[in-house]
């Protein structure tokens, strides 16, 4: 079971998740400090470690729209958030799979801050309201990367395979 700590609407942009003015900070380990930096109160709670890992952010359509900046995924990954949204923007969804940030596509999700939810492969159950919502599985192309433990591991395997081919 996981707790919903933030509920957002449509079109949450990468500028909202990780404002452009902090883009000089690139390394994944350094990005969490600027997570939702313009939502001062939430950012302060995050930095004070008041939000436990595997907390849930619920959003509507087109979460992560805008820039391709990977900081938007790494900053959320830094707190081990689970993002349950009605839909995601393409590059953000791909970056999330690549970095191991959990994203759940749940087109009808309804939840309020403080609700407890249960996430299974096929559905999300809102334990507080009792409502159940179907999950759309990630495309196989992305699931394969997640199953490999992220794109670094996935690509490393391919690089080694090709080096082996060249040698033999």
């Amino acid at each position, binding site marked *: 079971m996981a707790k919903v700590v933030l509920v957002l609407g*449509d*079109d949450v*942009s990468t*500028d*909202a998740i990780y*404002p*452009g*003015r902090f*883009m*000089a*900070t*690139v*390394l994944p380990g350094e990005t969490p400090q600027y997570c939702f930096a*313009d939502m001062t109160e939430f950012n302060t709670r995050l930095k004070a470690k008041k939000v436990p890992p595997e907390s849930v952010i619920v959003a509507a*359509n*087109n979460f992560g*729209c*805008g*820039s*391709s*900046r*990977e900081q938007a*995924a790494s900053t959320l990954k830094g707190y081990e958030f689970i993002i349950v949204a009605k*839909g995601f*923007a*393409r*590059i953000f969804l*791909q*970056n999330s799979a*690549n*970095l191991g940030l959990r994203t759940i596509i749940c087109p009808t999700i309804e939840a309020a801050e403080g609700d407890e939810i249960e996430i299974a492969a096929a559905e999300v159950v809102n334990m507080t309201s009792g409502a159940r919502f179907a999950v759309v599985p990630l*495309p*196989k*192309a*992305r699931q*394969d*990367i997640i199953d490999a433990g*992220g*794109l*670094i591991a*996935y*690509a*490393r395997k*391919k*690089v*080694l395979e*090709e*080096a082996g081919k060249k040698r033999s």
Partner: protein
Amino acid sequence: MGMTVVEKILARASGQRVVKAGNVVEPAVDLAMSHENAALVMNQFAEIYKDTGLETKIWDPSKIAIIFDHRVPAESSKTATNQKKIRDFVAKQGITKFHDIRADEGGICHQILPENGYVRPGGVIVGTDSHTTSHGALGAFSFGIGATEMAAVWALGRVLNVEVPGTIKVIVRGKLREGVLPKDIILHVIGKLTAEGANFKVIEFHGDGIASMTTSGRLTVCNMTVEAGATSGIVPADEETARYLREEAGVSDAAERVAPDPDAVYSQVLEVDAAALSPQIACPHTVDNVKPVGEVKDVRVQQIVIGSCTNGRLDDLQAAAKILKGRRVAKGVRMLVFPASWRIYKDAMRQGVLSDLVEAGAVVMNPGCGCCLGVHQGALGDGEVALSTTNRNFKGRMGNPNAEVYLCSPAVAAASALTGVITDPR
């Protein structure tokens, strides 16, 4: 069943005869572009090779382009240090398509690529920047990816696990009226499709309104397709593409022209009557909040921005100068101009376009992303309103979440600079 342009490009690049929307392919990459975020790509690239015992070597350094544009000259020691590390990497790996902060080679990545002939019709281009969609203007399949994905491209020379996108066909008919520009077409299309209406799709452009448009206008149009969520935009290469490559990009070999099959399958068809279009405005805080300029009443602005990869080309600056020449920017308004490249800057300088703008009160900045992404140069104050020819108006985009950004064409921006309120240029 026929193929769309992007399906044909992806079939060729992945060594298959036919691919269809939804197939997963690993296309070979013709050009892989990064800007300052190459610093992160380098980090992830090293991670891929960690403990493999293999040498960290880019698959083909001649196919990598790195352009400094996002924070030029460096706004902080952190950026300067990252840029320095990238220069060292470029030298070590033998990357030749490198554009440093110099007036003889620099500019915004999405202008540098086409004007240097790096973009070829029918090619596959990836960039660690969402507006990599721009290069579809020359008939390439060009899309944005994340830094880790780019690191895998540097290692392998292909993009892993790409789902072939479906295609939306947009047909633009008729001739734009005086004072209406390509920017107005794409703003209108985004308003119709919404900010996620083209998510996971490509927008393929057709019609006499596109055929008669210059490559500069097509770059504006394709640049903003990502604002409808699109993977990319594409204009099938034609006579104009060949002309641009020959005359403006110095490419002598003939362009390959990939056209869609007559029975290609589209997920949606949208028709635009260009002749009926009026200047458009995207209102805060989403790009799809689009209205005809006549419906945006009494909006006072403090900052006008003309430039960026969307509208910082010579014709954009000329359109603005035509309106501003011999006049003055209204009191209380700051006008900032960011040419998209130094080549454009110098052309505009020689033609007297820059002096017309400066005499009118505009501040001409160095080519680069400038205030577009809110890192440095031209941030907004609390409660201020900007009118900009850039491509995004998200909350906080110009460096201040307590400010508002409206988007428009260079003609609307220039006309509004004279009055201090959002104004129809006609």
